[in-house]
């Protein structure tokens, strides 16, 4: 084994940057590839905060309660050792972020302030205004810049990940990537590679996600043999501002700070969540709030002005409090809608928001369910040497994610993945430098040919129109309320899109900064993943967390307390199911 292993992290959001920091801290060089300058990654969109049971408010909160609520919030589909490890690490993580200079809101005594969030009755969420994700990402970006100045980290920004390079034994030995300016395709050898490429909400066209969240990288490795797990679990956030280009998130923290949801009924406000859930009120988990809003608008037809719209009302809260704790989202509402939420109720509707599913990853736990630190199995996919962390992996959240747990799982995932990559690389018998050059050259050629085929597409279809149609099919049929006949129809539609994809007209012959070629490649990858989501949903005949079928309204642990595993084949995804690790908490009815 070479004295200094080579490592690659793809994706520069919270999970990717944390993995980078852990690797660099071990004195090992790391190359980071990102579609956008890392500081512009989607983590900036996280608003409300990050969970950690620090218990500064004398409420008796503890990591054990956080763990229980995370598992219950996920309807018992999460593997419990990782969720436990995450919740136990959370207070230390928030302290570390604080030491890195994140401007968290403070109590009058100068301590970290915490607020409530969905699915809990404790004040557990540390926050920096209402742009917590942005502030966390910046803190990590700054730490990485320090390592960049020390030449331990090398950034490749405006590069698109295309594929992994596999050796004759099927292990990952590097990546192929494309410079999005020169369009040059190169291969980069590495002993360990981590994908931290985020979620896939752009498959649904309009969502709360950023434009880069197409799931393309995850789909590419899925097509190379990586297992994709629990794809059918897609979180729909209850409160977003519908838009033409995207739906803009209105953070759950608005409700945590006292925001109330209502619609007019018989001339009076009807606080439908408070009435039905007297304990948790407006802070029931997201899947539940979203279904209630659908019920109010689509079944009872009580949406505001008869439309798909409900009120999220902050106007009773003092403006000073709102500015200090929610300034970032008030500004978004003012800028994009034009009304002042300090004075009038906001109009919101649910939007596709987060993928609980993703690349399957492993972990190593001891007999008591504690994660073994530094184990190379942690966060490793089924392809040796390929790791995944952040929204792109399927762990931690089960069938539904609690608010403010995503920043936490990104950070914790990166914290585990980095050292795991180092252990794995150090334990290799043969370094990537010993892999024949022909292996790398073959992958480069394969990618160059694939790119050439896309550039040569000269049919009649427009890739951006196809994407819009895909988004409509997915949003209409594979979102909040799911029926088997509609899911089947959606899959048929995706297959038709795949045929039409072959008739795309690229109409841009440029070999410089060609976004049409890049988008068309990602569109194919989105179609492959769309089938994983749709067919996974079709097969799962029960209701659990975000996955809801009126024809199968109950959770069915006997038949379905298991992880969906999808493997790519040329004729579509093949499904298997694996048991869930429920060794620490017994599944129980999920009541709020």
């Amino acid at each position, binding site marked *: 084994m070479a004295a200094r292993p080579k490592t690659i992290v793809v994706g520069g959001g919270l999970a990717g940057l944390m993995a980078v920091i852990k690797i660099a801290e071990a004195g090992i060089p790391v190359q980071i590839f990102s579609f956008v300058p890392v500081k512009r990654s*989607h983590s900036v969109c996280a608003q409300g905060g990050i969970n950690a049971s620090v218990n500064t408010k004398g409420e008796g909160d503890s990591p054990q309660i956080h763990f229980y609520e995370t598992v219950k919030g996920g309807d018992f589909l999460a593997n419990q050792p990782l969720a436990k490890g995450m919740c136990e690490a959370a207070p230390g993580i928030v302290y570390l972020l604080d030491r890195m200079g994140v401007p968290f809101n403070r109590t009058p005594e100068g301590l970290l302030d915490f607020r409530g969030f969905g699915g809990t009755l404790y004040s557990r969420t540390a926050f920096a205004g209402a742009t917590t994700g942005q502030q966390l990402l910046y803190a990590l970006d*700054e730490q990485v810049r320090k390592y960049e100045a020390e030449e331990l980290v090398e950034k490749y920004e405006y590069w698109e990940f295309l594929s992994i390079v596999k050796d004759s034994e099927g292990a990952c030995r590097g990546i192929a990537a494309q410079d999005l300016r020169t369009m040059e395709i190169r291969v980069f050898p590495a002993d360990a590679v981590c994908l931290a490429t985020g979620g896939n909400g752009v498959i649904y066209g309009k969502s709360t996600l950023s434009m880069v969240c197409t799931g393309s990288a995850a789909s590419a490795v899925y097509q190379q043999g990586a297992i994709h797990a629990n794809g059918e679990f897609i979180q729909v956030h209850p409160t977003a501002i519908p838009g033409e*280009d995207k739906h803009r998130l209105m953070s759950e923290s608005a409700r945590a700070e006292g925001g109330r949801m209502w619609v007019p009924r018989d001339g009076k406000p009807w606080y439908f969540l408070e009435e039905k859930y007297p304990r948790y009120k407006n802070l029931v988990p997201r899947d539940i709030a979203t279904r209630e809003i659908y019920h109010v608008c689509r079944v009872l037809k009580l949406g505001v002005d008869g439309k798909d719209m409900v009120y999220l009302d902050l106007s009773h809260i003092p403006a000073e409090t709102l500015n200090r704790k929610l300034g970032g989202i008030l500004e978004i509402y003012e800028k994009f809608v034009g009304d002042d939420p300090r004075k009038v109720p906001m109009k919101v509707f649910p939007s596709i928001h987060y993928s609980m599913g993703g690349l399957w990853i492993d972990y190593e736990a001891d007999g008591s369910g504690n994660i073994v630190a530094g184990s190379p199995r942690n966060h490793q996919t089924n392809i040796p040497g390929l790791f995944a962390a952040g929204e792109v992996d399927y762990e931690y959240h089960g069938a539904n994610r609690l608010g403010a747990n995503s920043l936490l799982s990104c950070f914790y995932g990166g914290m585990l993945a980095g050292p795991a990559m180092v252990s794995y690389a150090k334990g290799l018998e043969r370094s990537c430098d010993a892999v024949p050059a022909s292996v790398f050259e073959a992958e480069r050629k394969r990618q160059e040919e694939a790119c050439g085929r896309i550039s040569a597409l000269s049919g009649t279809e427009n890739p951006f129109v196809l994407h819009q149609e895909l988004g409509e099919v997915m949003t209409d049929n594979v979102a909040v309320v799911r029926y088997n006949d509609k899911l089947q129809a959606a899959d048929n539609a995706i297959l038709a899109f795949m045929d039409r994809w072959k008739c795309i007209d690229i109409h841009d012959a440029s070999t410089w900064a060609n976004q049409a070629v890049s988008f068309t490649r990602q569109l194919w990858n989105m179609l492959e993943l769309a089938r994983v989501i749709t067919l996974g949903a079709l097969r799962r005949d029960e209701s659990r967390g975000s996955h809801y079928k009126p024809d199968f309204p109950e959770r069915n642990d006997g038949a379905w307390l298991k992880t969906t595993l999808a493997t790519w084949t040329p004729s579509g995804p093949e499904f298997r199911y694996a048991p869930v690790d429920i060794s620490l908490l017994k599944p129980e009815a999920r009541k709020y």
Partner: protein
Amino acid sequence: MAKNTIELKIKRQDGPNVAARWEEFSIPYKPNTNIISALMEVRRHPYTVQGQKTTPPVWDANCLEEVCGACSMIINGKVRQACSALIDHLEQPIALEPMTKFPLVRDLVVDRRRMFDALKRMHAWIPIDGTYNLGPGPRVDPNMQAGAYSLARCMTCGCCLEVCPQVTPTSKFIGAAAISQVRLFNMHPTGKMHARERLEALMGEGGLQDCGNAQNCVHACPKEIPLTESIAAMGRETTAYVLKRLFGG
């Protein structure tokens, strides 16, 4: 008067070393939309008003919520984020151009690497001993947190550089964004311990002394960051530092 269309003029340039051209587009009007949705519509229907099929315009964008800083461009002569530029507030035809102070990549995309390089030169980070568990960070006065937060919202979008007369494609001036970041890190209880390194860097080539006090930056900042206050504060801090260095403080 009811409008039925949105008229757009986009400055197109296939690469850094080729001539630019203007292309005009007319797309169906929709209320409450922004420049990004208009560009998306052009991409779905890439025909100029003359009916010529053209290549899809190339632009930078990511979050579309004005927190990532990607989509800065010049809209009707004013530099701003395309995501928060609402069609209903703009005079038509709407002219879209790339920023001029950064190397052009293609169409509306420019290369803002110089801004990230400046952050590197300014040591814009809090040095920590390590990422292991070392307990809580320093206590922070809530007022200081509020001040820090307002500076920490800088998304490196480049608007302040675009409007600065001292910043040219060839000048070395780091611009208001990086100066303000030095202020941010120098006010943090831990960052303060390493203030000297940043002040030294700030007094180096392309640093604070290149500011011409035009004060355009603060008006262009989409996040209303008090950039001129930051510049003034850093002026005072560097002066104090120089005096201290001279007379041995």
